[in-house]
């Protein structure tokens, strides 16, 4: 059995672990166009900020791949040919597979904007992109970051750490509009402004202005505002890099269509990570959730399934932990209030805020601002659909704890697999 994993990614690393939990023997080949190591994409902002060197960006060390006997080949995959069960490489070689995993991630979406073509315009999703920015992000430079979501906020943070002056342009009403509600969005946006970060909300870049030499000298916003700058970072979103699957005849909607075993519509072809449209356990629908934890869990499930196990992906949900210019926030689950009861606590002076979405005694979403300790207890309650109808106020009032859970729920979580052993103590 030969497993070919396309992309040396978080999903692939976990697929290796999943395969080896089932099949200690099969051959594993990881094919990646540029990376010789499996690094954590979210670390690129730490790299650009000078906080983490390249040597410390590995998600799993080289020894992990050696231990699991996963061979890494540097090549670009041109096509998957399901009939022949082969992939075509840019070298002209072909590589036969029994099972193939597509974990090609996402590519930054760059909207059509006048003057965008040329130097001085960057994206921010890969180490290569971070290095390109590093080369030009000198102290005193002026940058505009288009997009105030997770990637934009992290790019802006890193640029500021390098002494660059940053303005953020965001189409939504606040920073992080997809992960935050109005109140938390307002708190982090006001906080960013208090630190002299220029924010242009409900606005977008309509044109990039260049001088005769072609260098970026500024951007013009839809509102008519002009911002002088030398750099533009486009961080408005990421699109699944699904061409390999669609060109092979596989079903692709927003991302690659997969079942609960991460199998695509093509026999022996699986997909996981930012490229895949996996199961969302809160909505019951399939959706691209382009975050590291989901890529990891999908990759592991795919690995087991590829090796013939009946393991199913439990499903994922949106979750983000990010420091927004000094304010730690954690946002887990659903955000939009429609159809849910909203519970909130706000301490305006301390900028502490908690917000829960609840329906039928079940937690569907939690946003924590500034006080994020033990957030995972809430994540667990959301994930497992536990009945917390009687304790919502206690969960809201302070740091979440096990002691406030109903006894049966608490014991179930602590001892669910150990009751037998427990009786013997």
């Amino acid at each position: 059995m030969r497993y070919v994993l396309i992309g040396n990614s978080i999903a692939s690393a976990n697929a290796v672990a999943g395969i080896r939990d089932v099949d200690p023997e099969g051959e594993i080949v990881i094919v990646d166009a540029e990376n010789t190591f499996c690094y954590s994409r979210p670390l690129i902002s730490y790299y650009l900020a000078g906080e983490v060197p390249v040597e410390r960006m590995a998600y799993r060390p080289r020894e992990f791949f050696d231990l699991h006997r996963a061979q890494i080949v540097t090549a670009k995959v041109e096509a998957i040919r399901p009939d022949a069960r082969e992939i075509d490489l840019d070298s002209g070689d072909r590589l036969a597979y029994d099972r193939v995993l597509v974990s090609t991630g996402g590519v930054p979406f760059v909207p059509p904007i006048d003057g965008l073509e040329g130097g001085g315009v960057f994206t921010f999703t890969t180490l290569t992109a971070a290095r390109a920015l590093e080369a030009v992000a000198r102290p005193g430079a002026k940058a505009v970051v288009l997009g105030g979501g997770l990637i934009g906020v992290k790019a802006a943070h890193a640029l500021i750490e390098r002494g660059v002056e940053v303005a953020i342009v965001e189409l939504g009403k606040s920073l992080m509009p997809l992960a935050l509600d109005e109140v938390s969005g307002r708190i982090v946006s006001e906080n960013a402004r208090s630190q002299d970060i220029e924010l242009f909300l409900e606005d977008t870049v309509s044109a990039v202005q260049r001088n005769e030499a072609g260098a970026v000298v500024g951007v013009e916003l839809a509102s008519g505002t002009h911002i002088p700058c030398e750099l533009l970072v486009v961080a408005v979103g990421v699109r699944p890099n699904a061409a390999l699957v669609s060109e092979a005849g596989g079903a692709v909607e927003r991302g690659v269509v997969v079942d609960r075993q991460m199998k695509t519509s093509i026999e022996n072809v699986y997909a996981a990570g930012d490229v895949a449209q996996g199961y969302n356990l809160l909505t019951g629908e399939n959706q691209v959730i382009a975050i590291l934890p989901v890529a990891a869990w999908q990759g592991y499930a795919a690995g087991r399934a590829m090796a013939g196990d009946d393991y199913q992906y439990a499903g994922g949900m949106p979750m983000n932990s990010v420091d927004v210019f000094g304010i730690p926030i954690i946002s887990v689950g659903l955000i939009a209030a429609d159809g849910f009861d909203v519970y909130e606590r706000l301490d305006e002076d301390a900028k502490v805020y908690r917000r829960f979405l609840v329906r039928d005694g079940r937690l569907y979403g939690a946003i924590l601002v500034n006080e994020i300790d033990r957030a995972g207890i809430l994540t667990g309650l959301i994930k497992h659909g536990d009945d917390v109808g009687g304790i919502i106020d206690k969960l809201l009032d302070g740091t979440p704890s096990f002691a406030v859970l109903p006894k049966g729920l608490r014991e179930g979580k602590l001892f669910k697999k150990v009751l037998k052993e427990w009786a013997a103590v």
Partner: protein
Amino acid sequence: MKKVMPREEYCLGCQLCEIACAVEHSKSKDVVTAMKYEEPKPLARTRVEIEGDTMLSLSCRHCDDAPCLTVCMGGALYRDADGAVRHNPERCVGCWMCVMVCPYGALSRSADVSKAIAVKCDFCPDRSMPACVEACPNGALVLVEVDV
């Protein structure tokens, strides 16, 4: 592997487990020096929760399918040879992904403002009996072979 399990029906909420844990992870390993004079103050990795009559001491379960380990972007959390989930502070970037996913709330943030990192139970690698278990006068923490 053997794990530390709380028995809430025996717990009085005395927090001696927290003190024993903090001392074990201090520089001096002396209770008075560690708790009163050390800077930074050593942190306990187990936490006594009290809600009315309910009391229990909770720390890392060293889960077989540990979500913290999967989501750790810095590669700081790892499975050690003895099965324990341990944390390498050198690689921690303080992203709090582990805080977000641990269903037991077992990872804390260190108080160091210059470089806050995650702090968790290391299952006392230098001891045959974890400090918290040894310190509990009531048998409210026990070391048992379980499959959590």
